[in-house]
């Protein structure tokens, strides 16, 4: 068997793959966080809760309406996005003129509310959610064993990330969004409906978290606390990458996922805290983050 750095190759690639999958979720979530922060200047603490909401919506669609994975993958993000839009319209928009910390505090409260509600109704234990039948097998080669579903998650998240990047950088609505990020008042003066743009951006960011939740449902279990555990890691990712750049958020997400996966191989005790240690080191060396601009 091939050995690299004293590790059998399949073990190494297996952990790399797990790292890549975690990284896919880190990238999707930190991307949504960056898009929302870029325009709204709100650090969306509820991002983890929306991710959980996506997973739970998928589970509920299957449980109560008999809708399968693919239907849920389409519907759940729409529902989560709609919830996000309602939250933005009714509450969040009152906080734009205040210190940014109030947005963080508000969304923190929202996260507690959602998590508590689901925990109350569905209990703390995880709910199993199975991958579609067509993706249940594994692909085996000499170097690596890839469960098909996990491979699909990595590809889907890459497509979503790059698609979002293209939407923001290459389309007209993306140009409006970038312009509004620079100077919202001026863009409004040009006749762009900025309040609508804000609502759509928040809804879009939440929907991205919702998609990530649906994708995650078969990999991890669907549980009320799945989001809050993740959001803290995402914050560390965002501190490392800086929220100024879309591609930066994506790259940092994958990178830290892979580093975390590799830590599991070489020093498993530190796997939980690897990302936080990297964050601390980055703070010492480059306080603004790898791709960061300070706001």
């Amino acid at each position, binding site marked *: 068997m091939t050995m690299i750095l004293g590790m059998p190759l399949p073990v190494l690639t297996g952990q790399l793959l797990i790292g890549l999958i975690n990284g896919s979720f880190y990238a999707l979530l930190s991307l949504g966080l960056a898009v929302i922060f870029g325009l709204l200047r709100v*650090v969306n603490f509820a991002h983890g809760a929306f991710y959980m909401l996506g997973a739970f919506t998928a589970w509920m669609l299957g449980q109560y309406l008999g809708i399968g994975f693919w239907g849920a993958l389409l519907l759940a993000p729409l529902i989560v996005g709609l919830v996000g839009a309602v939250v933005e319209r009714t*509450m969040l928009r*009152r*906080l734009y003129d*205040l*210190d*940014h*910390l*109030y947005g*963080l*505090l*508000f969304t*923190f*409260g*929202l*996260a*507690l*509310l*959602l*998590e*508590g*509600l689901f*925990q*109350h109704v569905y209990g703390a234990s995880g709910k199993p959610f199975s991958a579609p039948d067509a993706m249940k097998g594994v692909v085996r080669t000499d170097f690596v064993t890839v469960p098909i579903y996990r491979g699909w998650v990595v590809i889907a998240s890459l497509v979503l990330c790059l698609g979002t990047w293209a939407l923001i950088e290459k389309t007209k609505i993306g140009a409006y969004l970038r312009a509004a990020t620079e100077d919202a008042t001026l863009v409004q003066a040009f006749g762009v409906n900025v309040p609508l743009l804000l609502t759509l951006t928040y809804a879009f960011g939440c929907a991205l978290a919702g998609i990530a939740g649906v994708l995650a449902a078969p990999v991890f279990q669907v549980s009320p606390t799945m989001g*809050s555990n993740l959001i*803290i*890691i995402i*914050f*560390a990712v*965002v*501190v490392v990458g800086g929220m100024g750049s879309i591609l930066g958020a994506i790259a940092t997400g994958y990178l830290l996922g892979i580093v975390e996966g590799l830590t599991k191989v070489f020093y498993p*005790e530190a796997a*939980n*805290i690897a990302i*936080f*240690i990297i*964050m*601390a080191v980055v*703070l*010492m060396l480059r*306080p603004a983050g790898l791709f960061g601009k*300070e*706001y």
Partner: protein
Amino acid sequence: MIVAEDYESVAESRRPHPAQRVLVLALIGALLLLPLWIYPVLLMKLMCFALFASAFNLLLGYGGLLSFGHAAFFGGAAYVTAHALKVWEINPEFAILAGVGAALGLGLVIGLLAVRRQGIYFAMVTLALSQMFYFFCLQAPFTHGEDGIQGFSRGKLFGLLDLADSMTLYYVFAAVFVASLFAIWRIVHSPFGMILQAVRENEQRAISLGYSVQRYKLGAFVMSAGFAGLAGSLKALLFQFATLTDVNWHMSGEVILMTLLGGIGSIAGPIVGAGLVVTLQNHLATSGFPVTTVLGATFIACVLLFRRGIVGELRHRLPAWRRK
């Protein structure tokens, strides 16, 4: 900046109003008599959290820094105190000192990293670092993981006062509580506190006046961590128990809520807020109603409807309270 809009101005806050002195003395008197009517353990729990929230408010209300990681100091000190009592079997006063010392050390390390960023990034960094500490506590052998440290006796304070008696413990708590609040009040009104508030109001101007802003922020952070640690040590002493709950990020959120609900940037605010949140939790614990959801809803209501907090709103609405 995230502060109550009408906090006391520097000049008028130097000297307490005579009516305020009377009020403070009356409150201390009430504190001494309350255990005659109210279950002392509940009162002591209230004091722990009031002190915790006051420590947090020292940083947020006067330094303008929102820490999302204060549970690390609270829970970390609780662990050290519990460990000291159980394994080292030292006197409770030394066990508390050890807890506070640990919180100060941890505060220095986290603070050194966190003050490098501002605003929301500061909040995220403190949250991430305290989560790292949580994972450390989860895995380190001396914390006993999910079981926590339990089954130790409180010992004798100075080798004389037996703290197993809850009334003795109550008066020790009351003394420490009043002394700590006085210390926080002194810090806020000291030259250090004034400069800290100046940094909060206008960091650039404070820098241009020649103050090394980072040091003042770090100083406030470490002091706040120390008082949070004292609160945690007292809690461990009271319940003879130290668990992961105290280092969890939920605890950091709770202390933010207490401070926000009571009112940021006043001495009374966090105490009122802590009292309300603890009472609410006690009520909800038996009602079967989801505590987290209620706390979340309270959070949202605070941020949307009364950002000054209860004490701040009262001050704002009752002009007589605003001493001119």
